């Protein structure tokens, strides 16, 4: 039976991607390290503060893994949640796993502890980048129901390799926020198709924001992560210059784009609608020669 990644819980995802019997969780739920701030606001807590962190093996290789639980407060980052992730990254600098795998599913900063959350996101970014400088590899994974937004959208793009399903969403400001501030004419957040055209996996893959497009299936994610563990990792001036060129090219070509359709057509895709309906495999093949990459 196919196990969907989009709907799976954080714990199910971890169970689905690591080698059986290899899992060890740090600060498990039984320790009840919960948010000290939510009770003051009379809000429910979760025993793991919405993130599972630990060590395991994937295809026989040692990895550290974190998984955000999108259904608890939208996977948003609070003080404990953020600190667990920072601690995991710091641990990697010392223990040198094959990679740190981040199963991201988050709307960004948890408003109930906004300042702590924002600072934590910046600490996560700094920790990842510092670890990358020291040679630790990061694999980001997006395909959950909350997508990956706000500061976590930046965290995702700080990884060496980023995997995403068509169903995943990646961006900075959520469509609802833009609609609230700028009005429905700017961004109709209830237009599902539009939301996915702007933030969804296929568009992100085509413009070079994501390295692999994965089917919404836990087993497929596992296989893709295993492949990502093999990918080379580098953090260099040359690499950043290549990324800069790609981003500058995107800006100069598509600054006037109003819809993903404009960009796809601009990239030389003949039948945008047909492309949008393709399966992951077909899509990956069909986009091989038009897809942007650094």
């Amino acid at each position, binding site marked *: 039976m196919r196990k969907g990644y989009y709907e799976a819980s954080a714990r199910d995802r971890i169970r689905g991607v690591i080698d059986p019997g290899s899992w060890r969780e740090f600060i498990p739920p039984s320790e009840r390290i919960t948010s000290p701030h939510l009770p003051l606001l009379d809000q429910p807590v979760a025993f793991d503060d919405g993130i599972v962190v630990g060590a395991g093996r994937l295809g026989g290789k040692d990895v550290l893994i974190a998984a955000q639980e999108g259904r608890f407060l939208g996977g948003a980052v609070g003080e404990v949640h953020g600190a667990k992730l920072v601690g995991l990254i710091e641990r990697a600098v010392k223990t040198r796993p094959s990679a740190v795998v981040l199963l991201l599913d988050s709307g960004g900063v948890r408003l109930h502890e906004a300042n702590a959350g924002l600072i934590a996101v910046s600490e996560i970014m700094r920790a990842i980048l510092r670890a990358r400088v020291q040679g630790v590899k990061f694999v980001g994974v997006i395909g959950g129901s909350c997508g990956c937004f706000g500061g976590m959208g930046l965290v995702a793009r700080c990884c060496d390799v980023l995997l995403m399903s068509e169903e995943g969403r990646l961006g900075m400001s959520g469509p609802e926020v833009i609609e609230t501030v700028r009005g429905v004419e700017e961004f109709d957040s209830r237009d599902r*198709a539009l939301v996915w055209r702007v933030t969804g996996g296929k568009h992100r893959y085509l413009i070079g924001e994501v390295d692999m497009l994965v089917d919404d299936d836990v087993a497929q994610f596992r296989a893709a992560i295993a492949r990502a563990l093999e990918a080379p990792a580098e953090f260099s001036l040359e690499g950043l210059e290549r990324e800069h060129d790609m981003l500058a090219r995107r800006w100069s070509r598509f600054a006037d784009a109003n819809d993903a359709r404009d960009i796809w057509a601009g990239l030389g895709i003949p039948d945008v609608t047909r492309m*949008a309906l393709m399966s992951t495999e077909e899509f990956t093949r069909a986009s091989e020669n038009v897809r942007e990459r650094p």
Partner: protein
Amino acid sequence: MDAPTVNTSTRDWHDGVRSKAARLERAAALAVGKRVEAPQTTALLECILEPGDRVCIEGNNQKQADFLAASLVHTDPARVHDLHLVQSVLALPEHMELIERGQVSRIDFSFSGPQAGRLARLVERGKIRIGAIHTYLELFARYFIDLTPNVSLIAAQAADTAGNLYTGPNTEDTPAIVEATAFKNGIVIAQVNEVLDTLPRVDIPADWVDFVVPAPRPHYIEPLFTRDPAQITEIQILMAMIAIKGVYAEYGVTRLNHGIGFDTAAIELLLPTYGESLGLRGKICTHWAVNPHPTLMPAIEAGFVQSIHCFGSEVGMERYIAARPDVFFTGRDGSLRSNRAFCQAAGHYACDLFIGSTLQIDLEGNSSTATRGRIAGFGGAPNMGSDARGRRHASETWLRAGREARRHKAMPRGQKLVVQIVETFREHMTPTFVERLDAWDFVQSANMDVPPVMIYGEDLTHIITEEGIANLLLCDTPEERKQAIRGIAGYTPVGLARDVRMVENLRDRGVIRRPEDIGVARREATRDLLAARSVKDLVLASGGLYEPPTRFRNW
């Protein structure tokens, strides 16, 4: 009803014919042949209609004669008033507008879904009199007895220049309405989306149609039967497992009708997975009277389904249906031919099981969707959800249910399985099981003769909740029946008031069966069991033929 007091010796028996001729005469200047241009529509209606007329503004479950309804709102109330609406569905704001403006003073209908709240307020303010709330089949029947329309405003996909109509997949109520109107001196006005030289097929012959109006916009069709699998809960999956294993497999149900909720959508999506794992393909769910639910596609593709007859169509299903003529009833043009009246009859007489959901169930097993402040009606559910007293053909399923019901009677006879599938609590912890239905309040507030009960307890055979199945056929006394219902009512006040010993006794006798009693493991009740978990999965299951409405797409 008209009560003619004419001396029959001097009567020429052609009042109706003369009335129709006079109306046509008044409107003659507005039409070229049968064709009337859209801007003339209001004038046409003012010429045709007379105070006191019975009017059907075709409002089906899905298809709406919305342009004609809007045109009617623009008529002069001094000329057009005291109309009596006789139509199955009151779904448009225009329908309520006509009541507000005093142009409609009486209604007989079946269902008012989106306007249920507004209708209740109009009734309270004394703006409108409700004749009765009918089932679909019942209202159609009255079209041929005492509620024959004088004027029917209908909707079709296309007309040719002669006035033949092509309804496309959404034929729905049109044949019943037109038959009654056209053959009893009534006038039929059709709004069409387009006029073609040659129609793909003829659904209504030109001879039955008086006027054709090309509408400025295509008529509205509501995608009423599209249930996004993403919203199906684990509890609904658990109940679907109970239904499949505890009822469908148990009775070998092959001919059936499903309601339109998420509970039954869950059953449809479990057939190719859970049903297949139980070896039930070919043994259950082969013949259906049901709309083309998108959630049925995985079961069709998996080979469960042999035949489906439809009340109406469903937006986005057109290409899929056309590609599966072995399963669906289709015309020469390849597209679906639906027919609500025939399908209701099929559901009533030729199905062995009806299953649907409801909002309230009382201790006698009466169920109702009427809640305070809403007069929603019940559409077709009572036709499906009642024993067909006139049925004479036998089937194993029908006989088995009959044997259970008639243990103490000499004359063998079958019975239809009528099943309600409900969670014990609805949203906001509102209990589904109640001591007294809200429907009773309507007797006073809406001046009704009887409470609007959707399915009567005496027709109900099984109730399924997350707590298990209550088989009401096996209850010997009214008290046992009450305890059987309490026994699966969970933690609602009705459930908590159960006699624990009596309930355990009923369980020993198989009247109440818990999930564990029928080998349903709660732990397996996960969304992974659904054959499709998203609308995208449905598109994949259809091989790309299904084209979901935009609001269900994320690509």
